[in-house]
């Protein structure tokens, strides 16, 4: 009997334990009721504990968040540095393209303004820098119409002349090579001489020979081709006088010329194949020319002016 009662009691407890929460849930599932006194007591007791724990957890969490932020900032910093480096490279590339564009536009302008000149554009593909010579190799040759002796110019001025020609390439000897000789004149005074390349120690440079002791030569004077020998057209920019000294007793002044062309950075050039027609070709657009030369270049070759190019 007691056993049966015991079993029944157990079943009753089990039933109650299942039913009570189920009823409570059914009552609260759809409509949330206010906390009863027991719940209020539990919540009141747990509230300070939760507050204290929340404070501790919050402090840890904040520290962790700051740590994560610091890590994030570091990663962001690295990323920004990489972006900056990339942008710097892109900026340099853009600058290079801009310069190339400028060079090509100037070369194009030379071609456009000289319809009487037959020219071919070429690219410098190699440079021969031996202790004895200064040459560059172009990607155009005999099949493109290039002949030996043809003058070569860049957007800045005279480069040199073609020395050897192959079918698809040609070799240009630069002005700084001692094998080159060009008749030149000073744009300001009209004094004439012969420009020779050569080495002074380790440095390749250009000198003007054949000037008279009485010639008016000043540092900074523009040097241009005189066109006398008929090899180079007249009024092509060569460079500027960088040193002018007249030693006592010497028959001619020592004149060094700083070339306008940067021979270490040659890229695109024009090779002059021939000149048909009369008058001097215009090698540099007037707006890009130095003031003293723009005046000289636009005048006729047969009408020498005082102090100008004859």
């Amino acid at each position: 009997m007691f056993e049966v009662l015991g079993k029944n009691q157990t079943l009753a407890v089990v039933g109650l334990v299942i039913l009570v929460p189920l009823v409570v849930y059914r009552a609260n599932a759809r409509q949330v009721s206010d906390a009863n006194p027991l719940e209020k007591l539990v919540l009141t007791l747990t509230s300070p504990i939760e507050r204290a724990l929340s404070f501790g957890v919050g402090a840890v969490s904040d520290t962790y968040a700051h740590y994560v932020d610091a890590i994030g900032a570091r990663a962001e910093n690295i990323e920004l540095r990489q972006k900056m480096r990339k942008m710097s490279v892109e900026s340099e590339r853009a600058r290079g393209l801009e310069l190339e564009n400028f060079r090509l536009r100037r070369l194009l302008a030379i071609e456009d303004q000289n319809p009487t000149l037959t020219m071919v554009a070429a690219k410098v593909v190699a440079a021969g820098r031996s202790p004895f010579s200064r040459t560059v190799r172009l990607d155009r040759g005999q099949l493109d119409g290039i002949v030996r002796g043809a003058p070569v110019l860049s957007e800045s001025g005279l480069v040199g002349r073609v020395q050897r020609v192959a079918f698809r390439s040609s070799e240009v000897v630069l002005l700084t090579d001692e094998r080159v000789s060009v008749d030149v004149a000073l744009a300001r005074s009209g004094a004439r001489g012969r420009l020779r390349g050569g080495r002074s120690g380790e440095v390749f440079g250009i000198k003007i020979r054949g000037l008279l002791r009485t010639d008016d030569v000043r540092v900074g004077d523009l040097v241009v081709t005189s066109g006398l020998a008929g090899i180079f057209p007249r009024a092509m920019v060569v460079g500027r006088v960088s040193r002018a000294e007249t030693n006592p007793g010497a028959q001619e002044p020592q004149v060094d010329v700083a070339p306008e062309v940067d021979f270490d950075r040659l890229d695109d050039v024009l090779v002059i194949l021939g000149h048909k027609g009369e008058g001097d070709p215009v090698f540099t657009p007037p707006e890009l020319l130095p003031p003293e030369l723009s005046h000289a270049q636009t005048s006729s070759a047969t009408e020498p002016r005082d102090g100008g190019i004859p």
Partner: protein
Amino acid sequence: MKNAAFLGLVVLALSLEGALLAHLPLPAVLSALFLLFLVLERPLVHGALLAFCVGYLSDLLLGTSRGFFATVYVLAFFLLRLPASRVSGGGPLFVTLGAAFVTFASALLGFTVEQLAGPGHSHLGDVLLALPVQLLLSVVFAYPVFKLCLRLDAQFSSREDDFAFRG
């Protein structure tokens, strides 16, 4: 006395869990681990009553509808008590597997109770989606929680013995 200590531990643990969950987007798992302890270590009636208390405290401290976890844990307790009474063990692997099983069963029972007795708004997909993280956390914390409960039990059992001896 040891049951009161156990409930005190539950209140503390659930408060801590609530404080943690305010900062971390994780599901609550501790109450299921306490249920596992009850399933393995308490007799039927005591265990059922304590499961009800744990569930009710969970409802209070985790903000679910009153009676929801109470119902779920009582049902889960009865459901798991029978198989649990046929196996014995208390090693880490046993407890860990048990915790995974209790968590899984509680989740499915919770969905069933909500569908049958509640508003029925939950989706099984959502429940199953949250389950892997719940299982992972249960597996990680199961044995430490179980050992803590055992230690507390041992502590208060010895005191009860002392009182009995004195009495």
